[in-house]
């Protein structure tokens, strides 16, 4: 009996550092994505749609400069220089301008809140695999019924993220990011970071906003009476004018996020809700108390539905 207890203690002692190691790798990955020089091509698959991008990333004197290029469909070039982001479009591709700016995974994440992620996901190392010519160790973060699981392939030496996946409860890959060609720790010349569309007729500049330090939604007319465990408010903004109210909130569990939008006047309810899915992104549009309510996030439809059901909005006092 005693030896059995010893064995258990040994196993526990043995298991804890392994657990810690996986979290360390993840933290090193976030740093590596931002502070390593690399160039390569990656694909991004979302549902049944795949897009290819090329990326050149340089870290110099504490500042990252990155040039992204969409390789299929509309030609788009995005130059990210510190906190500034500039998008370049060729003449005649105005439609592409309505899209948001794609970003390489984790390239904008300031710091991973490992403590929090650890409370919401179970980490597990699950072997090694070869991706884009490099050996990678696989780390799996298992979610619960309210959030998707995620899987990361980290290059064994630099910890650079080579592949990542968002996985549904039934094991389906909903979204995938994967390098197909990559060179790590290379010297990047200035010319590689110069957009080829620099002198193009159409140019759009996007100023990069820093997230507010503390989000505050005090005084909002809407209230979320239920949140999936581990999610907390990360961003909030609201305004009110003749077209009614506008309340926007984003919640995060440290890794995944969803946003809730309330808009409009308290009109008679249309009584219709619509659910749309694209890859891991769920969009639920419905009406509560006559206001238009939209929930968008990389969350299962079940989570979005429950949030909507438990959402309340006060009508203005007459």
């Amino acid at each position, binding site marked *: 009996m005693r030896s059995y207890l010893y064995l258990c203690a040994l196993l526990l002692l043995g298991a804890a550092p392994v657990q810690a190691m996986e979290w360390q790798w993840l933290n090193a990955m976030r740093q590596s994505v931002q502070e390593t020089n690399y160039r390569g091509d990656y694909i991004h698959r979302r549902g049944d749609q795949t897009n290819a991008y090329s990326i050149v990333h340089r870290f110099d004197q504490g500042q990252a400069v990155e040039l992204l290029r969409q390789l299929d469909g509309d030609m788009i070039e995005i130059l990210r220089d510190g906190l500034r982001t500039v998008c370049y479009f060729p003449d005649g591709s105005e439609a592409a301008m309505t899209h948001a700016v794609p970003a390489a995974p984790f390239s904008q994440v300031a710091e991973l809140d490992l403590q929090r992620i650890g409370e919401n996901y179970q980490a597990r190392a699950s072997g090694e695999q070869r991706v884009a010519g490099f050996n990678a160790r696989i780390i799996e973060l298992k979610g619960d019924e309210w959030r998707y699981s995620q899987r990361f392939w980290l290059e064994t030496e630099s910890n650079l*993220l080579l592949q990542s996946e968002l996985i549904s409860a039934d094991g389906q890959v909903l979204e995938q990011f994967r390098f197909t060609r990559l060179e790590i720790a290379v010297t990047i010349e200035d010319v590689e970071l110069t957009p080829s569309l620099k002198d193009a007729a159409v140019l759009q500049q996007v100023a990069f906003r820093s997230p507010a330090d503390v989000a505050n939604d005090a005084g909002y007319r809407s209230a979320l009476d239920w949140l999936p465990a581990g999610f907390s408010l990360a961003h909030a903004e609201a305004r009110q004018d003749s077209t009614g109210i506008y309340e926007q909130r984003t919640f995060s569990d440290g890794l995944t996020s969803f946003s809730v939008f309330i808009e409009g006047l308290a009109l008679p309810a249309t009584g219709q*809700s619509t*659910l749309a899915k694209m890859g891991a992104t769920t969009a639920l549009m419905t009406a509560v108390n006559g206001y238009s309510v939209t929930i968008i996030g990389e969350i299962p439809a079940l989570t979005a539905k429950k949030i909507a059901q438990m959402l309340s909005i006060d009508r203005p006092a007459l």
Partner: protein
Amino acid sequence: MKAKANEAFSAFLDGEASEIDVQRMLKALDEQPALLSQWHGLSKAKAGLQGEVLIDTALTFAAAVPAETSAVNSTGWRFRLQQAGIAAAVALVVITGARYSLTPEPSAPVVATVVAPERINTALAQQQFEAQRRLDQYLREHAEQASFTTGHVVVPAQLQWVEAQSE
């Protein structure tokens, strides 16, 4: 120009039109008012091919358009709004039907929305267009906020409509 406008209309039929697509359609309609009936024909043909349910109301709106000669000169916002409504109405013929074909597994509790012909009007069409535009905006807002915490951040591509449900 016309090819671009046709592309824009095609996107409209698929429920994927951007604001710029609509601008393009409106401009084309300004120049060639006859396009409206052409597009309407196209939308019917497409819906027919896909075996969708057709609710043909768009032509009645076309008839309600003021004389085409004045259409060319008019650039007032009210008129433009009306045109947007008409364009949306043409598309609506198919969009309404499309909900049936995009219904996912038969086991899912899906109630397709059947819009009675008398309820289809430009106001409703405009409402739908407005909802689509708003959703695009929300997706961009969410993507930007998500980028601060999430690994997976991308351009929101077109959404796949999987469920439409009446309550």
